[in-house]
C-alpha cells in the first residue's frame, strides 16, 4: 500500500508538486503519465524518501516515512530507474547480491534467489557474470528488476523503466513486466510518458500536469470521459499509438 497525504514540493519559486493526495491499494498498479516536468518523477522519489517533500506525509509498505524509517522502507520497496542504475564496477550477479549480502544473507541463499529471479525475469544465466557495459539495454533492465525484487518487496517503483529501449525489446519486456506484476501481486507505481505503456501496465492511470493530478481512472475512462481539456489533448497527441493498445489493456484487465 502507498499513501501520500498533502504532499508538496517546491524548487525555489518553481512548483514541482502541488499539495497532493494519492492512495494505492496493495496489489494494484498505477501508471503516472504526463509531459516532462509534470511532477510524476518527483512524486515517485518522494514516495521513497529520495526527495524530501516540503509538507505532507508518506506511508508506504506499512511504514511512515521518516529519517528513522527510510532505510527500512527502502528494503521493503524495489526501484528500477530508466537506464537501470546498475553499478558499472560490479557484474550483474554482484549488483543483485550487494544488498542481501550486506544484510547478512548467506551466499547460498543469494545464489538460490538469483537463480529464481533469473527465470522469472527471463535473463540468460550467462549474463550474470557480465559487467553492465557488456549487457544489452534490455538485459540491463532485467538485471535492475532482479535487483529490485531480491528482498521480495511488497512495493515496486519504476521510473520510465523501458523508455530507453528499442520497440521490439520494449514490447517483450512490457509483457514480462505485466506477467511478473500479476503473478507476484506487487503494488506498483510506474512512471511513463507513453500512453500505450501506461494502459498496458497500469490497472489505473493518473495523468499529471504542472505538479497536479488532473484525472485518475482506467484508460477507457480517460479516453471517453476526459475531466479536463488537457487530458483530451494529451491523449489525442498520443493517438497514433493508442488504438492497438486499447485491446491489450482490456485483455490485461481480464488477466488481472
Amino acid at each position, binding site marked *: 500500500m502507498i499513501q501520500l497525504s498533502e504532499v508538496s514540493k517546491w524548487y525555489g519559486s518553481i512548483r514541482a508538486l502541488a499539495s497532493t493526495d494519492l492512495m494505492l491499494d496493495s496489489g494494484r498498479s498505477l501508471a503516472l503519465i504526463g509531459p516532462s516536468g509534470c511532477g510524476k518523477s518527483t512524486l515517485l522519489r518522494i514516495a521513497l524518501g529520495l526527495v524530501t517533500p516540503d509538507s505532507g506525509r508518506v506511508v508506504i509498505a506499512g511504514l511512515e516515512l521518516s529519517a528513522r524509517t527510510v532505510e527500512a522502507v527502502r528494503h521493503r520497496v524495489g526501484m528500477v*530507474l530508466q537506464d537501470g542504475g546498475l553499478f558499472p564496477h560490479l557484474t550483474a550477479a554482484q549488483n543483485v547480491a*550487494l544488498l542481501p549480502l550486506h544484510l547478512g544473507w548467506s551466499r547460498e541463499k543469494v545464489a538460490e534467489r538469483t537463480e529464481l529471479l533469473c527465470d522469472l525475469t527471463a535473463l540468460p544465466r550467462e549474463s550474470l557474470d557480465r559487467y553492465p557495459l557488456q549487457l544489452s539495454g534490455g538485459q540491463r533492465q532485467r538485471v535492475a528488476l532482479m535487483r529490485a525484487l531480491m528482498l521480495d518487496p511488497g512495493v515496486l517503483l519504476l521510473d520510465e523503466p523501458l523508455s530507453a529501449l528499442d520497440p521490439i525489446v520494449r514490447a517483450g519486456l512490457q509483457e514480462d513486466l505485466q506477467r511478473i506484476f500479476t503473478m507476484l501481486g506487487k503494488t506498483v507505481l510506474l512512471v511513463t510518458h507513453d500512453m500505450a505503456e501506461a494502459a498496458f501496465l497500469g490497472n489505473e492511470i493518473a495523468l499529471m500536469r504542472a505538479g497536479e493530478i488532473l484525472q485518475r481512472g482506467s484508460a477507457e475512462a480517460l479516453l471517453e470521459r476526459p475531466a479536463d481539456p488537457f487530458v483530451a489533448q494529451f491523449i489525442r497527441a498520443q493517438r497514433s499509438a493508442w488504438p492497438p493498445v486499447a485491446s491489450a489493456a482490456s485483455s490485461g484487465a481480464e488477466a488481472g
Partner: protein
Amino acid sequence: MSRLVLILALLAASSSGARAEDPRSLRVGSKRFTESYLLAEMAVALLGEGASQLQGLGGTAIAYRALEEGSVDLYPEYTGTLSEEILRSAQPLELGTLRASLGSRGLGITAPLGFDNSYALVVPGPVQERLGLKRISDLGRHPELRIALSHEFFGRRDGWPRLVESYGLEGLANVRAMDHGLAYAAIGEGAADLTDGYSTDAQLVRYGLRTLEDDRRVFPVYQAVFLYRLDAARRHPEAFARLLRMEGRLDAATMARLNGQAEQGGQSFERVARAHLSAHGLIPASVVAGPASDSRTSESLWTVMRRSVRQYGPRHLLLVVVSLALAVIAGIPLGIAATRSRVLGQLVLGAVGLIQTIPSLALLCFFIPIWGTGLAPSLAALFLYGLLPIVRNTFVGLKQIPAPIQESARALGLPGRVRLWRIYLPLAAPTLIAGVKTAAVIGVGTATLAAFIGAGGFGQPIGVGLNLNDSRVILSGAIPAAGLALVIQAVFELLERLLVPQGVRPRIRHD
C-alpha cells in the same frame, strides 16, 4: 582531521627526540658554498670521533635556526653576517660586542680563523679594461651592464640594497638574481658582465675576474669564525680545544687555493680539508688517507651515482613516502568532505589550491619557526604540496559519478558508509589514484628542495654540484630523482590495475 594533527605532532616530537638522543656526537652545519663545506669538514676532522656534518643548509637564516634549535652545534660564519643578519645591527660590531650579544643567546664564537672573506663585486678582465672600471663608484656610468647576483647578496641589507643606496646605483636596471654557481657560469659564457663574489672565491682565478674597489667602504668586514652553542662547548671541552687550534691560521690566499682545489682540482671537501690540517700538523697525516681520498675526476658518473643512491636514496624515499602517506590519509577524507556541501567544497578546494601557489622553497621555510630545520618541516611542506592533487581528484572522481547511479545506491537502502566504500570510492578510483600518482611525482621533485633546510635526499648532491658547477655531481642527484619518479609512476600503474575495478576500466566495451 584530529588523527592527522596527532600524527604531525608525533612526527614533530620524534624529530626533536632524535636530536636529543645522542648528546655525545657533535654536528657541524654548513651553508651551500664551497668554503662553508670546507670549514665544516675541517671542524669535523678536528672535533674528532663521532662528529658529523649537516651539509648545505640553504642560507644564513636556516643555518642559524638549525644552530638555535640544536640541529647543529656549530657552523662557520662571518662577523659581518653576525652583525647584520643575526644581531640586526646598523653598524658592524666589534668582536667583543659580538661575543657579549651572542653570549646572552647561549652562543659563542671562536677568534677569527685568519682571513677576511669580504663581499666583492667582480667583472671579467676584458670588461674592466673596455669600460675602464676600477671602483664601484664607476658603475653608475654604465647602466647597460648585465648584472647577475646571488640570491643572498641580492636580498641582504648589507648586500646589494646598501650598495645601491651608498653609491647611487638606482640607474642599473639589468639586474637578475640567480644561484651563485650559475652566476659565475653566466659570466664565463659572456651572458653577464658583473656578479658578486667573495675575496676567497676560487672562481675569481678560474674566470679571470677582477675585483672592483669598495671606495666608499660599504662592505663590512667578514672575518671567518665558528659560531657554536655554548652548551655543546661545555659538553665537549676537549673537542672544542682542538677546534680552537684553527684560530688565526688560515689566510685569504690559502683559503682561495683550498676552494680552488675542491672546485676544480676534483678532490672531495673532506680530503682537501684534512690534507690542509695535516700539512699544518693539526691532525695526524694518517687520517687523510682513507675512504675520503677519492678523486672525483677519475670516477665515472655511474660510480658517483651509485654512491649517491646509497647515501641519499633512503632519505629521499622516506621524505616522499611518508609525506605522500600523510597526504593520502588527510586528502581523501578532505576530498570526500568537499563533496558533502557546496560551502565546504569551495573552502577545502580553495585552501589546498592556495597552498599550491606558495613557492615550494618558501613553503619549506615556512615551518622552520615551528619545527626548526630538517625532517619535520620538510615532511610538513611536502605533505601540503601533495594535498591538492589528491583532494581535487577525490572530489572530481566522486562528483563525476552519474546521478542515476548515486540515486539507485540510495534507493537500495544501503547505509552511507557502504555506499561510499562499495560503490562511490571504487567508481572514483581511477581519478583518485591518478591524483595520488601526480602527488607522488610532484613529491619526488619537490623533495630535492628539502636539502636546503637540511633534510637531505637527492637535493644534497644537486646543491653541492650546483655550487661546484660540476654537472656530474648534479646528475648524480638529478638522475636518481628522475628515476625514482619513473619507478613511482610504474608502481602506481600496477596499483591501478589492482585497485581499479574491471567494469570501469576503459578497455571493457559492450560485446
